[in-house]
């Protein structure tokens, strides 16, 4: 006679589920929405104080004569960034994350409620200043740009390889200060290329405007690729 298995016997079940499944599903839905509206979305990530807001202000001001642009700005506590960016005279919304150290797709979805995306060409998302946590969260963006200022030193990419590895372009900011801080360009480039071989590197100064034209050419060409791909898929 076969004895039944004891009820308390442990058993292993395989599930294989992505822990960030919920975020990824929302990001996926956002990406479809962005695609439909033909809006190119850029996620800006960096450590605090690397010049994201100044860079964004500069970008918005220069793009707005030719394109419809808008921005979402994540911050832990204040609305200072949004107030600063309001000077660029484009639509800006602040996302206050409270104690959360990164933006998640659901926060973007909430912030975009009632926003007519079809009228936009570019949407910029300024992530919370943090080089660790934002790496794991897809926001549905087309392009992830990691910013590093010359004042942070050349070894930043080696300290935060994960976020650099997840980026589509690296932007070295505050280049007007490079000489003053004796910034070692070859080492910086070598370090970026070590953690993400082939990553495009742009050099900008939001203060003097040096390098901004290259950046604008870069994103407008990326946007064109995406939009043309949508109009006539290969």
């Amino acid at each position, binding site marked *: 006679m076969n004895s039944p298995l004891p009820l308390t016997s442990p058993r*292993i079940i395989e599930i*294989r589920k992505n*822990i*960030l499944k919920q975020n990824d599903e929302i990001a996926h839905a956002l990406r479809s929405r962005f695609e439909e509206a033909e809006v190119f979305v850029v996620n800006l990530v960096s450590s605090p104080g690397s010049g994201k807001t100044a860079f964004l202000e500069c970008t918005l001001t220069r793009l707005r004569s030719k394109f419809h642009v808008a921005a979402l700005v994540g911050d832990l506590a204040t609305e200072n960034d949004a107030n600063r960016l309001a000077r660029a005279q484009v639509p800006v919304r602040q996302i206050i994350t409270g104690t959360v150290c990164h933006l998640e797709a659901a926060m973007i979805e909430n912030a975009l409620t009632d926003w007519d995306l079809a009228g936009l060409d570019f949407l910029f998302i300024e992530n919370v200043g943090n080089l660790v946590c934002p790496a*794991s969260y897809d926001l549905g963006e087309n392009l992830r740009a990691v910013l590093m200022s010359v004042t942070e030193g050349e070894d930043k990419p080696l300290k935060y390889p*994960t*976020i650099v590895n997840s980026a589509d372009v690296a932007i070295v900011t505050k280049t007007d200060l490079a000489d003053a801080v004796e910034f070692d360009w070859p080492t910086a480039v070598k370090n970026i290329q070590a953690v993400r071989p082939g990553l495009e590197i742009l050099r900008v100064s939001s203060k003097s405007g040096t390098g901004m034209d290259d950046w604008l050419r870069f994103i407008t060409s990326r946007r064109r690729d995406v939009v043309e791909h949508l109009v006539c898929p290969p």
Partner: protein
Amino acid sequence: MHELSIAMSILDMAEEEAGRRSAEVDAIHVKLGVLSGVVKEALLSAYDLAREETPLMDARLLIEEVPVLIFCPRCQAPRSVPSIQQLCCKDCETPASEVLQGRELLVVALELRS
């Protein structure tokens, strides 16, 4: 410190799966890529906090770290890397940008008790 929200997601997933099978969770098996952006030690301590006073307070968290594998364009094969600071082929040192493995953030299995 996003490990706490990751730990809470793990608990939610495990609770849901166990609830569906009317079972209790003995252990949760997780695969964590070294390029996932989540640190093993931080996740373990966040998990200890998160499970307190939940139905899963006795469930263990077993983390398997997954090393990076890249596709080496020169060897034309998957290869490991010297470190995550150096994404190149460990054998021939050719830089490689195609990451095949190492970004995992997965719950792979549960040990259940009825």
